[in-house]
């Protein structure tokens, strides 16, 4: 495989990490997060500063990126997770912008808007792929657990969930923290893949790109998250030959999906042996919605 395709695959894995967290948080728990880039930035800068300035080993730096990002989610989440849906989404938006501006202005630590160059490129395909696969398995386990069911119950009807004894605030904190850890890890890997970071990489455009992947793939499907990360990360790269038109194609594709299939490509269908069997045994398309 050429270096070019390996590079795309690494980006797919990195995006998938951030998309899995969002899928758990926005798709399964119903908490809209328009500030995922903020957590990527926290992870990217934490890991980069540790490896470039303090010669911390890569693995330890990534762990630190996850922990810092999770701590940030607690600090942001504590006052905002009690807000109703839309207000929380706006708070995440504000958070990401605040992180970006902080990074731009704390020039001594972060290099300001010029960013940090010459980061050792330690992220390779095995590392990125392992991280994405492990994350996928953990998140898939979680959504099928009693905790995962409680999260979906909160999405479906928060008052009813509370009335059967689900502590919705606690569960929101948990999925926000899991999401932040995955995004922090993605940020750390991204910085050490590209070899250079600057604040503009973590703008609202990045947050939007990630949330679009979740919606495109299907809000209630991890299979959809994987597919969307794969398709929407590689597509703009593979269409590079089409120059300016590639972003038009990308945008048109997303609009098309939203018009034709608003629940996202996969809806809530998951790729499991039982579901695949059901597809072939009874070819009832209605089963797909299951």
């Amino acid at each position, binding site marked *: 495989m050429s270096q070019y395709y390996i590079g795309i695959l690494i980006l797919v894995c990195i995006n998938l990490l951030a998309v899995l967290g969002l899928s758990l948080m926005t798709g399964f728990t119903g908490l809209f997060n328009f500030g995922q880039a903020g957590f990527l930035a926290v992870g990217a800068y934490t890991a980069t500063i540790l490896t470039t300035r303090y010669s911390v080993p890569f693995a330890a730096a990534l762990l630190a990126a996850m922990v810092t990002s999770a701590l940030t989610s607690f600090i942001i989440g504590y006052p905002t997770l009690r807000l109703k849906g839309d207000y929380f989404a706006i708070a995440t938006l504000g958070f990401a912008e605040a992180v970006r501006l902080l990074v731009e202005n704390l020039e001594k630590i972060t290099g300001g808007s010029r960013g940090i160059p010459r980061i050792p490129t330690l992220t390779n395909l095995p590392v990125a792929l392992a991280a994405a696969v492990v994350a996928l398995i953990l998140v898939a*386990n979680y959504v099928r657990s*009693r905790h*995962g*069911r409680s999260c*979906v*119950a909160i999405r*479906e009807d928060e008052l009813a969930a509370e*009335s059967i*004894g689900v502590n919705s605030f606690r569960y929101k904190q948990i999925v926000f923290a899991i999401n932040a850890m995955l995004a922090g890890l993605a940020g750390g890997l991204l910085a050490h893949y590209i070899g250079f970071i600057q604040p503009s990489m973590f703008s609202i455009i990045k947050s939007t790109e990630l949330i679009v992947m979740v919606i495109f793939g299907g809000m209630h499907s991890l299979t959809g998250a994987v597919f969307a990360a794969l398709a929407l990360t590689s597509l703009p790269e593979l269409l590079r030959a089409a120059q300016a038109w590639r972003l038009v194609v990308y945008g048109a594709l997303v609009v098309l999906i939203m018009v034709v299939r608003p629940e996202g490509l996969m809806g809530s269908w998951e790729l499991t042996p039982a579901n695949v069997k059901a597809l072939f045994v009874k070819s009832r398309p209605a089963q797909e919605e299951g």
Partner: protein
Amino acid sequence: MPLLEIQHLTKDFGGVRAVDKFSYQLGVGALNAIIGPNGAGKTTIFNLVTGIYDPTEGHIFFGGDEITGTITHQISAKGIARTFQNIRLFSDFSVLDNVRTACHRYASYTVWEGLIPTPRRRREEKALAERAWRLLELVDLSDRAHEMSKNLPYGHQRRLEIARALAQEPKLLLLDEPAAGMNPDETVQLMDFIEQIHDSFDLTILLIEHHMEVVMGLADDIVVIDFGRTIAQGTPEEVQANPVVIEAYLGAEEE
């Protein structure tokens, strides 16, 4: 000692007094009802007991402990379960998962075990599924276990919501207009069903209802409220004969 005791409960919404110094006692094992015209404050009383609203004044005791102002999910842990006037199922869940989710307290595996399954998780999940199945059999919904709850007929949705409440093994069950929107057939079935669970689950039940036949047929004791205040209390016969009640409620309803 009464299971539920409400003392001088008052709730103001801005300038409107929805519940006005409401006092009430509910004995263990009772099957009682609260009735009253629309907007009398019945549902507000349920919302105050289940911690959805904080009372302006007054106290609520459950099993002798004060529960005034307790958060909703902790109320459930204390043994009070409820249904809602406008059915609130987890509509994207299967029938089974609606009940299974409400059983969550009977598993103790941690969030970490949610991420990385352990033998304990597998054991407890199996027990949860069995518990949910048993309950579905009891309420006669097991043949629809894998259907999406939003696809159930209306009467079945009501029954599923009650099953979800029962899954918490409550001591007290609050039913908010369980017969609302039901046809006469469904209503009769529902009455049998409520009597059946009252007996077989050792429950204390308090229900709000508009269907007079349901209230008169089921409840041992009825409290009538209007403008958040108790205007009468007694057996179905006493309440039916009470001129104050007829004036405030039955008279207007019967035309």
